[in-house]
Each structure stands twice: as structure tokens, then as C-alpha cells.
């Protein structure tokens, strides 16, 4: 009960923030929520099941390009395209998982990194169709979801919040379900869970597909809400960012990705106002986190004070 009350309060807080905050910050918040959905997907694989992937940009990109290309080239309406993009993320995750899950640990990291690199280079190679580095901008008529105009700040915020709310609720259900416990078992002791009758390969594949659903939905929503998609969103950097968010917020916590995405977003925003070297901040944050706070903010809070935090 306590758990649901906390998460509903967070959603309510976000809704209030939209009314209180000036447009600039409300817009940032919309972006943060979409990125947080992406990071939640990453967290399901990394935080709960211990699958450290360096190639999630491929799944984010699949969602983004699945939606963007359908809207741009096939003239599909935004909502079906959004669903198609989400499925593209899951489908790509299944494809990658079938192959990459034959490996584990460091090999898994490198294989996922390489698959993502192949995807990124493929986007560049077919630049006539995908827009390559420059990307493609979507215009206003292409960005109407159920009559709501995504070029308007307010509509965009509510769309982001709706997506985030659905993602947060289903993640909470997922981690508290029986399958959620199996996920943790995979992370903690794979051999033992195999002994108990679970097939690690199948369980991990399911986890990766769920993770892909989240990443795909985030990518698809990003394209529609912010009206642009380009190859940089499928680059290595977009595989690293969700990892950074999750590490900072707390791996294996439900709210960690939102906290991490928000903090990192404003850290980078603040740093770019001081210096152009904002990537330095990203790099330093990675090193400091992994050295001094491997559990992240919410992970540490949970360990010390709030044991019930999911």
C-alpha cells in the first residue's frame, strides 16, 4: 500500500510540476520522463536481472526509427506508428537476445555493443532512406496523437506523463510479481535458479524483450514528442546514458531511473552553461559513481533507511 501511495504521489508531483514550473523546465521534465522510461527498460535488464548491455541504443533506435520511418515514408498515423515502434524495440530485443544471450558477462557486453554498432552504421549506410547523420524532422500534422498536438508544450507534457505513468505502474507490477522474483534470482545466482527448474536462457530472453518494449516505446515517443530522429540517438552514447541514469539513481530500484535521468539531465544542463565540455561531467560521474556509490542514490537510501523501497 505504502509502495503504491509513494509512486502515485510521485506521479501527482510530476503533474503539479507541469502547472507550477516555467515552460522551459516543464519541457525538460517531459524529456526527462521519456528518457526515464528508456532507463527503466535498461534497469529491468541490468538492475533486476544483472544483464549489463552496452547496446540498448539499438533498441531505442529501433523504436525511434520504426515509428519515424513509418510516419515519414508510409504516412502512418502517429498512434499506430507508436505501437509499431514499441513492437520494433521488443522484436529487436528478441533478435539480439536470441544470439547475445548465448554469451555472458564481458562477452555479452561486447556482443551487444557490436550489434548496436552494426545498427548505427546501417542507419548511416542507408542515409538516403534514414536521413543518416542529419536525421529527419517530423512536421505538425504527423505528430497528432488522438487529437492531441505534440507540438504544444502542454499536450506533450501530458503525453510524456501518461507514458511514464503506464511504464512506472507496469514496472511496479512486474517487480512485485512472481516473475520479478525470478529475475532477481537470475541476478543473484543463475546456477541455483537453474537447479530450481528455471531455464535461464528463456527467462533472460523474456526480460530482454520486456526491456526492449520499454526502450522501443521511449524511442518511439521521443521521435513523436520532440519531432526529430537521427543517427546520433542510435550511437554508443545512447547506450551509455541509460546505464549512467540507472547507476546514479540506483540499479534495481523502481524510481531510480527517473531520479538518475533528472539529476544527470540538469547536471549536464548546468555544466553546459559553464563549459562546452559537458561530456567531461558524464565521464567523471561514471567514474565517481562506480568508485564511491556503486548502489546509486536510491540503492543507498534503501540499504540504510527504507528497506521496503521496491
Amino acid at each position: 500500500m505504502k509502495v503504491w501511495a509513494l509512486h502515485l504521489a510521485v506521479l501527482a508531483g510530476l503533474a503539479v510540476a507541469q502547472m507550477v514550473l516555467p515552460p522551459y523546465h516543464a519541457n525538460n521534465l517531459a524529456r526527462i520522463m521519456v528518457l526515464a522510461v528508456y532507463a527503466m527498460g535498461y534497469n529491468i535488464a541490468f538492475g533486476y536481472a544483472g544483464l549489463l548491455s552496452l547496446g540498448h541504443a539499438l533498441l531505442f533506435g529501433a523504436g525511434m526509427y520504426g515509428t519515424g520511418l513509418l510516419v515519414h515514408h508510409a504516412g502512418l498515423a502517429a498512434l499506430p506508428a507508436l505501437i509499431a515502434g514499441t513492437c520494433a524495440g521488443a522484436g529487436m530485443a528478441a533478435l539480439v537476445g536470441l544470439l547475445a544471450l548465448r554469451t555472458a558477462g564481458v562477452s555479452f557486453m561486447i556482443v551487444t555493443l557490436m550489434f548496436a554498432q552494426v545498427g548505427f552504421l546501417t542507419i548511416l549506410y542507408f542515409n538516403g532512406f534514414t536521413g543518416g547523420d542529419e536525421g529527419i524532422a517530423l512536421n505538425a500534422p504527423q505528430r497528432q496523437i488522438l487529437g492531441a498536438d505534440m507540438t504544444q508544450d502542454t499536450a506533450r507534457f501530458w503525453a510524456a506523463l501518461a507514458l511514464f505513468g503506464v511504464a512506472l505502474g507496469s514496472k511496479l507490477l512486474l517487480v512485485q510479481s512472481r516473475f520479478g522474483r525470478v529475475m532477481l534470482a537470475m541476478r543473484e545466482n543463475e546456477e541455483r535458479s537453474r537447479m530450481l527448474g528455471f531455464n535461464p536462457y528463456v527467462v533472460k530472453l523474456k526480460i530482454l524483450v520486456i526491456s526492449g518494449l520499454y526502450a522501443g516505446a521511449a524511442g518511439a515517443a521521443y521521435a513523436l514528442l520532440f519531432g526529430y530522429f537521427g543517427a546520433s540517438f542510435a550511437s554508443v552514447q545512447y547506450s551509455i546514458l541509460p546505464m549512467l541514469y540507472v547507476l546514479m539513481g540506483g540499479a534495481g530500484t523502481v524510481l531510480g531511473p527517473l531520479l538518475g535521468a533528472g539529476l544527470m539531465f540538469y547536471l549536464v544542463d548546468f555544466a553546459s552553461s559553464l563549459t562546452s565540455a559537458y561530456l567531461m561531467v558524464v565521464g567523471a560521474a561514471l567514474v565517481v559513481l562506480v568508485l564511491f556509490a556503486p548502489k546509486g542514490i536510491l540503492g543507498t537510501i534503501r540499504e540504510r533507511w527504507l528497506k521496503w523501497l521496491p
Partner: protein
Amino acid sequence: MAFGPYLLLALMEGLVKAAVLALTAVGLSLVFGVMRVVNVAHGAFFMLGAVLAWTVAQYVPGPPALAWMVAIVVAPLVVGTIAAATDTLVLKRLNYDPEATIVATIGLLYILEQAALSFFGPDARPVTAPFTLRLQLPWFGFSGYKLFVILATLLILLAVWWFMSRTKAGLVMRATQVDRQTARAFGINVDRVYAGVFALGAGLAAVAAVLLVPISQAHYLMGGDPLLLSFIVVIIGGLGSLRGTLVAALIIGLSDGVISMFWSPTLAKIIATAAVAMVLVFRPQGLFGARA
């Protein structure tokens, strides 16, 4: 130009690529072999070597050859020192946990690239070759410096081989690679060995970069390709094997040279990356040893 000479040119260019790649990859392979650390910042060390070569060339007066000779000594030393410091300050504290070290070296990669961008700027800068000699073949001219790169690489690889298999320091490194605990029990200072290996690996990348930079250019983002290709070479060639690394570098360098001359470089990279990912998936034991 007819097909034959064209292919010859592609192969010669490929050989130069293979040489630089072999040097870079041997450094990566050494670090992974001895320390079990996947160093994602290896490409950044490479980039740092090239940028330092340019910086040295700005401050050393006189003929380009002199500046180049200073660079080939100074750049690996500076890069090696940075690497050793990283090892002591960061990697050692992580107990060389494989996943944590990867995250930390990704962070290091960003820090180094950004530092290069801030101090060096976003432009690609040329470095003058130490000598200009043009070999005139019947069909085309070929830079003598490129041949020198191939030759120098062979010498350096020989030196690395001799160091690892014939000297006491090499023996200590190999002993640490086989069994860290036992090596420690025999009085080997494992911390120092690790710092040394990490510095040596980074230094080799810097040497490769100084050799390459007169043919190519120094740029703060130039580390991406060498990193990816070195990974590929190390994975195909097998862990810790100098010969395997050399053979794999030859295969990758030559095929990269040929494919990118006849088709597009992007396509060459797509094919190579996908193929290697498949190798990792289906033959992991030959790549990261028993620990796959």
C-alpha cells in the same frame, strides 16, 4: 589503372592499416590477457598519442624528423603515465571487477576525449612526416614513410615478443597472468605489475598513433575506429597470443583496405563488426579463453 595494380595498391594500404592495428591491438590484448580488464579507453589512449605528437611538433623547432623522434618517445611516456595513474587511482580500487572496470574506462574515455577537445580543439590537424620519400612503381607512387611504418611495427612487435618471453619482467607478467595469488605468494608485487602492464598497453597504442599520424591526421574523436577494430582483432586472434593478434590484424587490416577501396568503408565496418559479433556468440571459448 587496371585491376591488378589497383588491387596491389589496396593491399599495400591494407598492410599499413594492419601494421598500426596490430600495434594497437597488442596493447589491448596484453591488458586483457594479464589483467582481465576490458579497456574501453584504449582508443582514447591512441587518440592522446596522436594529439601529443601534434603538440610536440608545435614546440620542437627544426626539421620535422626531430619533432617526430621526440614525439615517439614523449607521447608513449605521457600516455603510459596517465594509464598507470588510472590503474592505481581507479581500477585497483574496483578490485578489477570486470563490469565495474568497463564502466570506469567508459568514463575515462569521455574525460580524455573531452580534455582533448578543450585543449586541442575540434579540428583535424596534420603532422608532417619525418621524411618524404616517394617510391615510384610502374603504376603508381607509394609513400616511403608508409613502408617505414610497416617496418617499424615489425621491429616493435619483435621487441614486445622478446620482452614478454625472454626478460625477467616479461616472466613476472606472464606469471601474474597465469595465477595472481601464487604470483603474490612468490613475492611479486602484483599491483606494480598491473600498473606496468596497463601503462605498456596504453604506450603501445600511443606509439601506433604517432606512427600513423603523419599519414592520417590528429583529431579528438579518432579513437573510435582503432578501439572497435582492436576489439575485433583481439577477439579473432585469441587472448594473450601475440601471433594470433598479428594474424588477425593482417586479416582485418587487409580486408578492410580492400573492401573500403572497392566498396564503402561503412559497409566494410558493418560486415566486420557483425562477423565478429557472430564469432563471439558461436565460438566464445576461442576468444576470451576459458572464462567466456
